[in-house]
Structure formats: structure tokens, C-alpha cells
């Protein structure tokens, strides 16, 4: 019992860490280096510290190995047994070792049940033999948690194996907790297992078996990403430029929304127009209702095809359910198809049961900010479950002076029929559930679903439509993933319906309120295969898919009663060929879109990755992507309001639009050559064509239209621009883990986009910033206090607004946006010894705390954004 309790103490984290995996990785690496030098005692301390920071089976193995090398056979045996418990699929690999240890220990004494010497981990003394009754009582009280943690390790190991071998229980688009290399066992052990042997020099002078010399396991905490190629791989091997935000990055960021978390990613543009809306783009091309980045949740698209955007507020997950966010910069259509033009953001949720716990979290703050959530993740045998529910609200950054300030409401010219509370910009209630069950060694079933009810979401519409609100948005999804051997099947259904219209309309003006409903059904069958031909290792991933889009929208031709159904088909393959330090990646995806020509939707990608050193790689990648015209651009027939009540501009969609297309070439270097840093530098060139815009107004008059209650001043429509956009940039990022508890990051991007008609001089697109800088640090002190701060600087922009003048003509108006800086800070403390309770205070966008005058806009149409000072309490058990 004492041995188990001591190990339990090792497994329990002493502190809630800023990013414990980083610390664990650093200690683990230092331990390996010490072991290579034969300094086994130092190695042992490092491995213990790593295990203390973030438990891992391979770390247990190395701890056992270090004890063995130090001739502490009892502890070695104990840790080998823990390793067997944590990695049951590898238990047999160490049976010969355990047999030897038992034999050798048996020649000297009885077989122990736990460590017998004091050890330390993470700077914390561990109680071992000789504990007092009081200490034992305390340790016994948490004995159950040892079992839970052991189960968690087992779960994670099983899940990682499943993901590695099959693309994950939640689908091949990267939904597992880490994602791993399918060729490598998740704990990094040698598949052949430790060799057997004997040692003729037993401690008692008798011939005893020799300990197998299997060495140390190389890497227990390798960073793995899955979004770049749908299979787990190290960032060093990624064919695309990728940044990973961990759950701890989210927790400590001080950000109140997912888009705000993304501000720290180099090359990502985040623009908040209202408290309900933030638009995210990558490497430029941001706009109201940004449409060139594909947002995935566990590989499930959240893109609303009828609108061409993602409504972040309707994503039905809370922060405690997120394991990490992977951000791909660069075209992703070769892997994910349409709309992954300048990048892919994949929000990867925690695997159910991987870390059994229940978390209550509540936040409240200024600017009408309030949030509450409960999440629980549990496991029973082969079945694991995760449940979550959350409430989220945010006040409006600003409101019109006229809506409520009139002495008598009827005297005001404005009204907001879709809005219950004009002080609210976002109010969301959401819940989700997922249940996973593994079947045998190589099969699984996963079912999940969620819903979000967005009571209010203010956003700024494209063009002249201005300040809008979404009311009563109901987002539902259901999903299933089935894995059987190498085959993986995934299906999901997204449903969205809502009312939308101007946030505030003048009384008696034309009713622009609308209704939409969107149903997306997507099925996909995928088969990742791993094999070798001579010296070449292959990872081949092939798949087929189908998507059905069924949308209705009041602004489309025929109105809400007219459904628009599209059937999309796709096929894809991704081959990764590895020969020593060289990897070549070829990807090809073909989408069959009902309105597009096949040659317009072929998306290739090619990449060469070469490991200059063990932890340093260079990559050259070229690829293309496309954005399919959304339903508004294809089917719209709506009379846009002009400046006069009795006039309108008729806006036609076009079914002959070409997709927006991008071709990218980039060259990057990724370096993790020390355990104290990770760095990446990339230069890129983007060529973007066929951007879809509203055309100039063509005069054309028609008789009075009673539906629009006005006269047509002209017509316009969606066209592909002739302009060619060229984007150039360099992005650099570095993360430092200099010492326990301290994480520092800094990144910068210098980029420009120029547009030109063929054979004409080019003009810089001023809506993209020339320079962006993000810096931040998180420090978890030894006193159960966590400190973090971040700063995001964006240089000045000049936007060209497209609006109709008094005569209905489309005009471009230049509007400058000054440079801006967003400062966030957070301090958190955990007063209870078991770290179950956390109290935090934070501020997002601290500068406007100085008052309204220090607010700033991020878009000429947007509200001046304010500050949020907030408090947060969470309790986990």
C-alpha cells in the first residue's frame, strides 16, 4: 500500500500548470541526456519531474529503467509494474524484465510492493516508507485517485493507439486528444520489446539473470498534430505551417471567446466588429463575415455554406472541453476541400474519459460579460462519456443613442423588433454530449451531438446592410464515427435555423427581417494505410465522401419557401513517403460541385520536408485551394435597400460564378532542437484570383414593386473580379520554456497584399496590416498563483467600404483604422491543497479601461471595442 500511495503522490500534480506538457517534455529530454551520460540519478530526478508535470507511460518506463541502472531493483520493479498498468497493451514487453527483477530481488529479499526510498518530483518531496499514520491516512484518502489516474493513462494510451492506427475514434480529420504517428506506439516503446538476458553477477554472489538492456524510451511528449494530413505527425514533419494552442493556452489567455484566443497565432487576423461577432482570417483577406478559413470541430465543418461564414458563437462547446486548437496557415483544400482557402482551424475536443473529471466554471465581468459551464468526462470499461453545458453572454460594445433614450419610446425613430435587450450583443445557451466505445482492439463507435440556442448575436453584414442581429438561432448537430480495422466511417448532420434582420430599424421602413434554415449531411469513408517498400515508408490515406446541402433563406430567389439542394461528391488521397530524413508529401482532392466545373475544384498539394537535424526540419510546400460560391452569391434575388425608402437595388446571384482560388508557395524552417524552445519561420507567396464581389450598379428601372414597396434604381450582381491579388509575407514564431512554470512566446508577421489587373500597376490592399506582433508569458509560481499576460499589436489598415450612394451607385469609400494593441492579463490562485478550486481575475483588452475615449474600432463599420475585467471561479473534482 505504501508503495502505491507514494506513486499516487507522484501522479498527482502539485500545481495546475501553465502548460505542463512543455515542462514534462523539457524534464524528459534532460533526463534522456543525463541517462546517455550515465548520470542515472540525475536522469531519475528529471523523469520523476516529468511524470509529476504530466503523467505518461513511457516516463514510468524510464523511471523504472533509471532505478534499475542505479541497482534499486525494488523501485525499478514497482515502476515497471506501473508501466504495465498504464500501458496494458505493452505489458508483455516488459514481462522478461520483471521476471529478471523478481528473480534477482528474490535472491535477496521478499518482493516489494512499492518504492522504498524517498524520491522527489517537480521539486516536491514524495512520502515513501516510514510514513506516519496521519500521512498514511491522508494518502489513503486519495488512493482512489491513483486508480482513476491509472485508468486515465490506460484510456489515453488506448485512445492514442486508436487514433494513430485509424485516424481516431472521432474521425480521420484529427479529433483525438493528441493524434499520433500510426507507425509508432503511443508511448514510444520499441515494438520489439526489451530483449531477454541473464546476469551472472547477482548481489549475493550467485548467478542471477541479467537485466535486459532495452535502453530508455526516446520521446514520451512529442508534440503531435493531425490537421495537416489527417494523421498524427510531429510538427517537424507537417507539410503545412501549423500552430497549436493547448488547453492551458486557452485557460490562461484571458480571452473570453475562441476568436480572441486565436489572436496570439502568428499570421491570423482577428477582427471584432461587435461583441457578438469576430471575423477570423489568415494572411489577410479579412472582411465582415469572413469566408476564407475553414473552421472545424473535431474535423466537422462549422461552415455555413448558405452564408459563407462560421458563426463562432453557435459552436456548442465550452472551453473545458477543448484539448487543443490546431491552426493551419495556407491552403487546405487538398485535405479538406472547399473553403479552406487561406487556412484551417481545427478545434479538437478532449477524448471522453481520458481524464475523468467534472468541472464547474463561472465567470462574470464588466461590459455585460457572463459565462457558466459544467463539463464532465467519465469512463466505465470500454465506454466513455463526455457531457457539457454552458451559458455565455456579452453586452454590446455600444448602442444607438436613440433607441431607448427618448422620453417616450413612440417618439423614437428607431425600433428593434428582433431584440429583447438592447444592451446585449451575444447570448448563447449550449450543450453537447459524446459517447465512445471501443470494440475489440481495432474497432470503435463514437456518437456525439450538440445544440446551441443563440438568443442574440449582433453582427455587421456585408455591403450596405450594416448592423444586423441573429435572433433565436438554433444550431444542432449529430455525428457518428465508426472505425473497423483500417476503415473509418464518419457522418454528421448540421442544422441551423434562425431569424435575422437589422438590429435597429427606423419605424415604418421596409421590413428586411429574414429567416434561414440550413441542413448539411456529410458522410465520409477513409482508409489510412501504412506500409513499406524497400527503404521507403508509406502512409497512404484515401477516402470518398458525399455532402448534401439543403438551405432556405428569405433573401434567395423564391424566398424562404424555395429550398436549394446541392449534392457534392469528393475523393481524396494523401501519400507521405519517408526515406531516412527526407519526406515527400503528395495530396490530391477532387470535389464535384453542382455549379462548378471539375477542373475548378481539383486541389493539389506537394511538399518536401527534410530533417536537417534530429529536431530541425525545412519544408517547401506548394498547393492550391478554392472557395465555392455560397448560396447568397449563387442564388440571391433580393432588393437591397437604397438610401431612400422607395428605392432599391436588385441584387442577383449567379450560378455561373467561378470559385475563388488561391495558389500558395511557402518555405519554412521548424526547430525544436532544445527542450527549451520551439521556433518556426516561414516565407510565403499567395496568388489569389476570382474573388467574388458585388458588381457596380447597372441602371435599369422597373415598375413599382409592391413586395419591396419601392422602385428599382438599378441592378447589381455577384461577379468574379479580374484583379489578381498577390500576397507576400514572412512569419516567425518562438516559444520558450526556460524554467519550470514559465512559458514565453513571441511571434511577428510582415506581409502585404497587392492587387492588380493584368498588365496594370499594382495597388496595395490596405485592409491587411503590414505588421503584426504578439508577445506573452505565463508563469505558474510555486505558491499556487498563476500569472499570464499577452499583447497583440496590429498596424494600421485602410478599408474600402462598398456602399450605395444616394442615387444607388456603388461607391468605394476609404476608411482608415489606426494601429491598435490589445493587452490581456490574468492572475489565478488555487487555495485548496488538491487544486480543485481556482479563483481568477483577469482583464481582456485593458487599454479601454481608461474610458470610452481609449476604445478603438477594428473595422470601420464595427463598434469601438471595450475592456472586460472579469472574475472566474472553477471547481474540478
Amino acid at each position, binding site marked *: 500500500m505504501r508503495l502505491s500511495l507514494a506513486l499516487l503522490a507522484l501522479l498527482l500534480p502539485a500545481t495546475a500548470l501553465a502548460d505542463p506538457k512543455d515542462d514534462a517534455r523539457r524534464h524528459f529530454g534532460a533526463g534522456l541526456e543525463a541517462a546517455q551520460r550515465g548520470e542515472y540519478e540525475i536522469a531519475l530526478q528529471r523523469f520523476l519531474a516529468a511524470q509529476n508535470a504530466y503523467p505518461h507511460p513511457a516516463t514510468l518506463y524510464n523511471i523504472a529503467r533509471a532505478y534499475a541502472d542505479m541497482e534499486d531493483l525494488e523501485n525499478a520493479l514497482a515502476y515497471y509494474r506501473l508501466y504495465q498498468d498504464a500501458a496494458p497493451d505493452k505489458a508483455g514487453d516488459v514481462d522478461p524484465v520483471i521476471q529478471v527483477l523478481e528473480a534477482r530481488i528474490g535472491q535477496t529479499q521478499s518482493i516489494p510492493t512499492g518504492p522504498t526510498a524517498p524520491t522527489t518530483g517537480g521539486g516536491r518531496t514524495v512520502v515513501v516508507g516510514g510514513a506516519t499514520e496521519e500521512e498514511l491516512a491522508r494518502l489513503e484518502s486519495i488512493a482512489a485517485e491513483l486508480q482513476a489516474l491509472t485508468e486515465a493513462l490506460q484510456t489515453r494510451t488506448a485512445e492514442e493507439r486508436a487514433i494513430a492506427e485509424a485516424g481516431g475514434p472521432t474521425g480521420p480529420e484529427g479529433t483525438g486528444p493528441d493524434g499520433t504517428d500510426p507507425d509508432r506506439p503511443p508511448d514510444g516503446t520499441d515494438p520489439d520489446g526489451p530483449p531477454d538476458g541473464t546476469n551472472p553477477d547477482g548481489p549475493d554472489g550467485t548467478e542471477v539473470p541479467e537485466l535486459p538492456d532495452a535502453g530508455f524510451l526516446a520521446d514520451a511528449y512529442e508534440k503531435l498534430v493531425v490537421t495537416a494530413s489527417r494523421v498524427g505527425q510531429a510538427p517537424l514533419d507537417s507539410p503545412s505551417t501549423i500552430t497549436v494552442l493547448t488547453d492551458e493556452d486557452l485557460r490562461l489567455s484571458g480571452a473570453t471567446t475562441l476568436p480572441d484566443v486565436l489572436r496570439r497565432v502568428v499570421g491570423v487576423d482577428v477582427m471584432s466588429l461587435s461583441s457578438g461577432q469576430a471575423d477570423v482570417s489568415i494572411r489577410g483577406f479579412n472582411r465582415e463575415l469572413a469566408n476564407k478559413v475553414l473552421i472545424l470541430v473535431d474535423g466537422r465543418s462549422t461552415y455555413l455554406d448558405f452564408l459563407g461564414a462560421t458563426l463562432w458563437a453557435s459552436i456548442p462547446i465550452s472551453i473545458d472541453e477543448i484539448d487543443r486548437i490546431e491552426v493551419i496557415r495556407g491552403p487546405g483544400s487538398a485535405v479538406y476541400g472547399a473553403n479552406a482557402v487561406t487556412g484551417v482551424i481545427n478545434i479538437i475536443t478532449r477524448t471522453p474519459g481520458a481524464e475523468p473529471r467534472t468541472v464547474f466554471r*463561472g465567470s*462574470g*465581468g*464588466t*461590459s*455585460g460579460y*457572463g459565462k457558466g459551464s459544467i463539463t464532465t468526462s467519465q469512463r466505465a470499461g470500454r465506454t466513455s462519456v463526455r457531457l457539457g453545458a454552458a451559458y455565455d*453572454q456579452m*453586452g*454590446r*460594445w*455600444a*448602442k*444607438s*443613442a*436613440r433607441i431607448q*433614450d*427618448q422620453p417616450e419610446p*413612440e*417618439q*423614437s*425613430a*428607431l425600433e428593434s423588433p428582433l431584440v429583447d435587450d*438592447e*444592451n446585449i*450583443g451575444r447570448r448563447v445557451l449550449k450543450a453537447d454530449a459524446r459517447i465512445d466505445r471501443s470494440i475489440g482492439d481495432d474497432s470503435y463507435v463514437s456518437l456525439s451531438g450538440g445544440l446551441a440556442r443563440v438568443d442574440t448575436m449582433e453582427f455587421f453584414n456585408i455591403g450596405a446592410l450594416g448592423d444586423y442581429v441573429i435572433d433565436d438561432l438554433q444550431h444542432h448537430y449529430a455525428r457518428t464515427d465508426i472505425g473497423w480495422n483500417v476503415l473509418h466511417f464518419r457522418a454528421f448532420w448540421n442544422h441551423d435555423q434562425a431569424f435575422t434582420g437589422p438590429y435597429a430599424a*427606423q*419605424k*415604418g*421602413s421596409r421590413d428586411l427581417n429574414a429567416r434561414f434554415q440550413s441542413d448539411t449531411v456529410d458522410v465520409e469513408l477513409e482508409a489510412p494505410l501504412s506500409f513499406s517498400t524497400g527503404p521507403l515508408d508509406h502512409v497512404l490515406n484515401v477516402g470518398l465522401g458525399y455532402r448534401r446541402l439543403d438551405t432556405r433563406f428569405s433573401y434567395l430567389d423564391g424566398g424562404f419557401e424555395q429550398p436549394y439542394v446541392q449534392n457534392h461528391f469528393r475523393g481524396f488521397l494523401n501519400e507521405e513517403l519517408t526515406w531516412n530524413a527526407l519526406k515527400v508529401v503528395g495530396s490530391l482532392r477532387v470535389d464535384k460541385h453542382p455549379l462548378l466545373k471539375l477542373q475548378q475544384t481539383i486541389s493539389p498539394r506537394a511538399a518536401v520536408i527534410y530533417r536537417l537535424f534530429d529536431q530541425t526540419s525545412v519544408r517547401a510546400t506548394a498547393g492550391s485551394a478554392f472557395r465555392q460560391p455560397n448560396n447568397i452569391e449563387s442564388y440571391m434575388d433580393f432588393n437591397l435597400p437604397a*438610401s*431612400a*425608402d*422607395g*428605392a432599391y437595388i436588385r441584387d442577383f446571384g449567379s450560378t455561373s460564378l467561378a470559385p475563388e482560388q488561391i495558389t500558395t508557395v511557402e518555405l519554412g524552417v521548424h526547430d525544436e532542437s532544445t527542450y527549451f524552445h520551439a521556433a518556426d519561420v516561414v516565407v510565403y507567396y499567395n496568388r489569389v484570383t476570382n474573388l467574388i464581389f458585388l458588381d457596380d450598379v447597372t*441602371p*435599369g*428601372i*422597373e*415598375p*413599382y414593386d*409592391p413586395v419591396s*414597396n*419601392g*422602385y*428599382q*434604381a*438599378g441592378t447589381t450582381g455577384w461577379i468574379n473580379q479580374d484583379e489578381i491579388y498577390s500576397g507576400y509575407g514572412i512569419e516567425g514564431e518562438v516559444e520558450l520554456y526556460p524554467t519550470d512554470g514559465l512559458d514565453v512566446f513571441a511571434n511577428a508577421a510582415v506581409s502585404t497584399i497587392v492587387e492588380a489587373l493584368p498588365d496594370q500597376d499594382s495597388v496595395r490592399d490596405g485592409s491587411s496590416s503590414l505588421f503584426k506582433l504578439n508577445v506573452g508569458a505565463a508563469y505558474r509560481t510555486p505558491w499556487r498563483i498563476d500569472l499570464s499576460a499577452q499583447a497583440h499589436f496590429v498596424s494600421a489598415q485602410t478599408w474600402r467600404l462598398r456602399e450605395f450612394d*444616394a*442615387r*444607388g451607385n456603388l461607391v468605394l469609400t476609404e476608411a482608415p483604422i489606426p494601429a491598435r494593441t490589445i493587452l490581456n492579463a490574468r492572475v489565478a490562485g488555487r487555495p485548496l491543497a488538491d487544486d480543485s478550486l481556482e*479563483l481568477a*481575475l483577469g482583464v481582456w483588452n485593458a487599454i479601454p479601461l481608461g474610458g*470610452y475615449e481609449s476604445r478603438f474600432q477594428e473595422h470601420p463599420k464595427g463598434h*469601438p471595442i*471595450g475592456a472586460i475585467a*472579469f*472574475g*472566474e*471561479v472553477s471547481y474540478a473534482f
Partner: protein
Amino acid sequence: MRSSLWLLALVACDYEAPVLRDQPPVGNVVAGELVANGVAVPGDTIVLVYAANDPGPPVGTGSPVTLATVPAAAFTGEGAGIQSAPFTVTGLPDGSYLVQALMDLDGDFNPFDISVSGATCGDVAGAHLADLVSGTVAPVTVQGGENLDDVTVVLGTVVPIERPAFELPGPAAVDRQASLSPTTPQTFALASTAVHSAFGLAFPVDLPGPCPESPAAPGFCDLAQLNPCDTAFWVHVVDADGDGLPDLRADLPPEAGIPNIWPRVYLQYLGVPNADGTGFDPLPEGESWSAEAFPFLAEIGAFAAGLIPAPPVPFGPTVPMRALSVTWAPVAKHVHPGGAQTDQATGEAFDLVDLRLGSPLDAVPPGAWSITVVAESGQTWRIPNALALAGYTSQPEAFDPAGQAGVLVVQ
């Protein structure tokens, strides 16, 4: 710390968003009732709002600040008695306005082209009046995002004549240009014309005319065969004081000596025709030239001599004419790109000019000028207009679209 958390939670629940500063002023709303008297079957009705300090034709030269429409179906009432419908005009900046209305009984109105943007013969006009006796149009004043909802607009005045559709006379399109000197006063002729065209896909423009010519007085209409809804120039020499001499224009400096004669003729600079003949090289944004020409009194002399009897129409002693000679002295108003000399806030949809803002020039810029005729009834016509564009269905026996392409060229 826990108490702080509760405090913050309460703050979140009791939040009031700050008022948006530096926002564009919230437009005001003017609403009320349209009241039509004696209209058997109401038509779609257009509410036109003019700035009070820049009224529209014929009182002023302003163009509507905004417009709203009220469908015929919105009118309720009994038969030919009083019928009413609610109307709302939104987005009005702070200020005073004149609210006028036009019931488009024949369904040929559209505000966005001069050829179909006015009342046609038989339409019903109205306004928000100070009182029904004097018929004085009363301004309404709104400010601060106000919802003024008790404005009554009375529709009762039937427009008895047709718009003054015209063209520059000549046998071919290339001759439809009246060349002028940039420095010397010149006289040019306008010829009344019919218009028969399907505008767009299914939008009729059907203006009969011109009036039959008087055998005794060329250029004048034959009153014996005159249909008031024929197109014509209804000429009125105003002699309000009855001294037998034309009054002088009250809106122009007396020293200019300009007699008060209807219709008015206004000119708007279009620019230099471009090389391919498809349009005009535009002026710098914000710059414009405008001018006025005046009916030639020698022709009016025939009316003054009693050769032509005065027709019984509501506009006093007016004379319908098939042709009109006008004289343009090289006087024009130049609005600079920076906006000097302009009250552009009132708009300029009808290309009218207030000579009070103008100044004599040694020369007017060479290039093409459009011509707009404004009748005393407030009805207008301008060339060139959209009826000259290709694609419109025309009836050649009655109407030559090329005639609507004419411009005045200063060389």
C-alpha cells in the same frame, strides 16, 4: 476575492451598453396619412420630400431628399369619396422639409430616370398644406431621431397636362447637337415630341403628341384640336401686377432683367465626349457646371399680339407651343471639387441650378450639355435620357429614340 467575483457577476447582469459616440446622426421619421379626395381607384403613390430651403419644381430647383412609396392597396375608403393610407418616410436628417405626393394613376412612374420620374397627364398631386384654402405647402421640422407621425398629405390636384417632352430638331442623330460659342449668347430651338417606348422589359412610356400645329401660327398648337394630354411647351408670361408687361424673375437679381416666363430651361455640363462616342469624360468628383437658358421673347410676341387665344387651363393664360426657342448667355454656375458655391446637401437629381449662386463667366467650358425643361406644373423633361439607349422598344412612326440622345455642344 470571492466577494469580488460575486460583485463582477452582478456587474455582468446589470450592464447597460454605452451610447455609441461619433455615430452618424440617426435619421428622423416623418409619418402620417395620405388623404385622397375624389379618386375612384387609387394608384401607387410616391411621397417626395424636399428640403424646405430648396423646394422642388416648379417653386424651386431642388430635388427630393428622399422618397417613399405607398401601394394602391394600402388605401382604404369608399369609392370616389375620401380614401386614406398611412405613409412613412425614414432616414431624414435634422431639418425642415416639404412633403409632397404624387398618385401615379397610370403606373408609368419611376424616380430614377427623368423620362418617367414626373407626373403624367391625369396623375394626382398633393402636399402637406398649411391650410386647404390657400394651398400653401407647410414645412415640417424634425430633429434628434424623432418620429413625427401626424403629418397629413392631401391628394386632390389633378395634373391636367402632359410633361414637356422634347428633342433637338433635326433629321438625324448626328444633327441633334446645337453648337454654341462659349462666349457669345446663342439661340437654339427645342421641338416638342411624343414618346412611345417600352422602358426596360415591361415598363411603358407613352406620351402622345406633340400637339397638332396651328395652321395660322407655325410653332404653336392648334387649340381647336388640342388635347391637353398632348406634349407641348405650355408658355406662360407672368404678369401678376397686370401692368401689361412681363414681371421680372423674383429669384434672380433685378438688374439681370430676366422676365418671368414659363417653362424654365436648365443646362447641365456633361463633359467632353469620349473617343469612342459612348459617353463623356467625367469631371473630377465633386465638380459641376450648370446654367440656365431663357425662352425667346420674339415668339411669345405672337401670343402677346393676340394671335393666339388663351386656353382655359388652371395655370392662367398659358399658350401651348410645339417649338420653343431659347437663348443662353454664357453664364453658368461652377461648383468646385471642394464643394464651394453649392448647397449640395439638397441633392441635384433634376440637374437644376440656382443662378443666385452663379457668376458670369468669360466663357463656359466646351463640351456637351444636357437640357432640362421645367413646366409651370412642375413637370420636367430632359435630354439626353435613357430612352435613347439601345434595347428599348420603340415605335418609329411616332418616336425616334435618337431624338432623346441630343446634347448641346459648346465648341
